[in-house]
């Protein structure tokens, strides 16, 4: 059995007081209001989160990235009867991070390398395979994937399935018969580039970003014409303004983001060319404002002494015009990052009461352990509170927008800095949260891991790692390595929290049945009460779960829940890679905190789909 502990419902408001007196007063004031009267729950903009039609056409469910299913057949009164409807082996033994898609009674699943795409016919018993598409990526691409050879899923648009291959292609596949419509080579593995993210299709453009922040690549996002694959625009994360698509429309909120060619000037000469800022995570889209939002990854190398400066535009959030790519604003969550705190985590769009006014905001649980509430029109930070154990940052100064770093946890060459929290993989990593407009809570699957870090000089050799740090991870306070936190974004505090033995590396799903679904790295797939966190149901799958659960309405009108099981990813690399736990620095330090995982699960990808009995 897994070790999971439910904390008593909600911490007291006073417990959440930050050291800063002003913030504490504000928190208390908000809590007082909350107790006195019900505050309107934040809601995603209708244009970004239309009414659920029972399909699942993009990994994030909708452009607001809520991962909320409007289906409620499965709920607290009957979930205990949930049982397996059908399964499907993916034929791979690496980490299954993808979200299945469901379109027109067909399910589509993308495997980790070799990135095969399967279409399953949901109208027939057992959901038999309709077709398989094999893109045959270069086997050598496995050597430039930092953190297992994962893929985070596909997107459907206009009769086609779009997804990326590890060796850097975007492919468009006919959803009906599986024939390849086009393929476009975007990344170069000999420069260390790969692609693992799930694309998002906005206004007929397929948005794709690269991976390779541990290989000295130069990060970018590209927009491809969905019909042809032609590149419409390409925006780098470093370099001169013209490459970053910074022009007259760029109006960042904070002064530190203003100036010419900061993507060059905030780096040592030429270091921006190999400075990272990749984009392997999530994109959100607000149709009303006509803006896309995404975070950029860590600067490289990890050894911060090799790149003095703010290292723009890495480790922060961009707002861009999806038609042209033109940057609108940027907010740097981690200027001159020195802990590998990528900014690529999910961005959820909500309209939310802030100080008595409804504001158009985005929620971003960053790797650095803080939950940011940004005004998505301007890039102003409205709130930033830790959702996880943090000691590397003392607080976020909302006036400057910058984190106030703890000097004791700054990394350097020649000494090992111990017990830095959160660890390099963050308060949370890529695995996305879910938001329910019914409960007003954001369900954050995350980690409770700290680390020891020693920076070392590193050489740039194209196509090989460019890191410069020896990291050894360890469990955070309390010893539990994972947590599921239900976060109240209005009060900026948790409503409830579940402690998990292993780090949570699966995404979350929340449904109108007020159930939250997530998986654990030893294979339990769980449903908990969205209001209280009480465990309602669980099922042991064949391997650890690091995937993204979805809900859909089958052709029979029933609600189904689907999840890919199959351990791996950065946190689980020790299992599919058969890594040796005697060297805790393995897998960029993750081996040190997962020495027991091989004894708890084995590799192997399998789709599980659950339903209530007929």
């Amino acid at each position: 059995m897994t070790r999971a502990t439910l904390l008593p419902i909600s911490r007291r408001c006073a417990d959440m007081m930050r050291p800063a007196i002003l913030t504490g007063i504000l928190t208390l004031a908000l809590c007082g209001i909350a107790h006195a009267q019900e505050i309107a729950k934040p809601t995603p903009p209708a244009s970004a989160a239309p009414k659920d039609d029972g399909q699942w056409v993009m990994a994030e469910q909708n452009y607001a990235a809520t991962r909320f299913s409007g289906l409620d057949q499965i709920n607290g009164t009957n979930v205990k009867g949930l049982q397996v409807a059908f399964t499907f082996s993916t034929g791979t033994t690496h980490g299954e991070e993808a979200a299945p898609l469901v379109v027109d009674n067909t399910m589509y699943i993308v495997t980790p390398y070799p990135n095969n795409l399967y279409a399953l016919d949901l109208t027939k018993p057992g959901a038999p395979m309709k077709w398989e598409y094999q893109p045959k990526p270069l086997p050598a691409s496995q050597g430039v994937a930092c953190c297992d050879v994962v893929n985070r899923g596909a997107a459907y648009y206009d009769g086609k399935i779009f997804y990326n291959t590890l060796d850097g292609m975007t492919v468009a596949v006919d959803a009906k018969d599986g024939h390849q419509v086009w393929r476009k080579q975007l990344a170069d593995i000999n420069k260390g580039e790969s692609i693992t993210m799930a694309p998002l299709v906005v206004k007929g453009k397929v948005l794709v970003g690269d991976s390779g922040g541990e290989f000295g690549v130069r990060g970018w996002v590209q927009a491809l014409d969905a019909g042809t694959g032609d590149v419409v625009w390409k925006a780098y994360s470093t370099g001169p303004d013209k490459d970053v698509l910074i022009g007259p429309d760029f109006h960042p909120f904070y002064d530190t983001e203003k100036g010419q060619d900061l993507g060059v000037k905030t780096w040592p000469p030429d270091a921006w060319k190999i400075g990272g800022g990749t984009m392997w995570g999530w994109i959100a889209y607000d149709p009303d404002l006509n803006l896309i939002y995404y975070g950029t990854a860590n600067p490289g190398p990890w050894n911060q002494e090799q790149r003095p400066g703010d290292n723009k535009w890495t480790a922060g959030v961009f707002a861009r015009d999806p038609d042209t790519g033109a940057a609108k604003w940027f907010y740097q969550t981690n200027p001159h990052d020195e802990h590998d705190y990528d900014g690529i985590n999910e961005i959820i769009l909500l309209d939310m009461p802030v100080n008595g006014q409804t504001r158009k905001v985005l929620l971003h649980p960053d790797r650095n352990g803080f939950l940011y509430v940004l005004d998505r029109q301007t890039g102003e930070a409205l709130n930033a509170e830790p959702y996880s154990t943090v000691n590397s940052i003392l607080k976020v100064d909302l006036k400057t927008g910058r984190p106030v770093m703890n000097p004791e946890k700054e990394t350097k060459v020649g000494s090992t800095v111990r017990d830095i929290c959160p660890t390099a993989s963050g308060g949370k990593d890529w695995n996305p949260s879910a938001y329910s407009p019914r409960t007003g809570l954001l369900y954050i699957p995350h980690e409770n891991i700290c680390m020891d870090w020693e920076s070392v000089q590193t050489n740039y050799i194209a196509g090989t790692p460019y890191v410069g740090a020896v990291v050894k991870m360890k469990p955070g306070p309390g010893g539990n390595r994972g947590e599921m936190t239900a976060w109240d974004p209005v009060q900026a505090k948790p409503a409830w929290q579940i402690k998990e033995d292993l780090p949570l590396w699966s995404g979350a799903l929340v449904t109108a049945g007020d159930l939250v679904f997530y998986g654990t790295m030893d294979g339990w797939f769980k449903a908990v009460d969205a209001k209280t966190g009480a465990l309602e149901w669980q099922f042991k799958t064949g391997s650890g779960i690091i995937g993204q659960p979805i809900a859909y309405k089958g052709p029979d009108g029933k609600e189904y829940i689907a999840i890919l099981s199959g351990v791996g990813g950065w946190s689980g690399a020790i299992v599919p890679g058969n890594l040796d736990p005697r060297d805790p620095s393995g897998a960029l330090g993750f081996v040190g905190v997962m020495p027991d995982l091989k004894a708890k699960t084995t590799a192997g990808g399998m789709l599980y789909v659950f339903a209530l009995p007929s």
Partner: protein
Amino acid sequence: MYSRFLRNSGLAAALIVSLAGSAWAQGAPGSTAVTTLFPGGGSAPPPDPRGAQYDRNPQAIAEGSRLFDWYNCSGCHFHGAGGIGPALMDDVWIYGGSIDQIYASIYQGRPNGMPSWAHKIPDDKIWEIAAYVRSLSTATAANGPDQPTPSPPSPPAAEPQQPTPQTTGPDAKK
């Protein structure tokens, strides 16, 4: 620190370029086998004689340890645990664990992500890295040589290569 970094990396790049086409021109692995399956009988070819002077040689292992970081081997294999590349401190060898087999893997690369270093690392330094990698394995430590049984001696395909003395190279970083 920043200036030191640039100087070092620039120097390393220059050395890599200047050494290309000289030290390893004849360094290609000979008949080193990466299989133990020989249909119809037969056995592995004799070990590459060049490996003997490096195998279990403490000086070669020490130098190989330093080079292992210098050429970013540790970026994928870390200090034996593995990560992007496989573990090296366990008792599993995908492409063989004798020193000439390890040399061949580094020199040629391997299909699932191991780069070919033939034109990036001088030949003698590949041997030193191979000596270090071999020393990491528990199989080597516990069971001694795990070279496949050699076939009867036969003339090697090429004369043993004497490592070219390197007065520059990564040592220059000190």
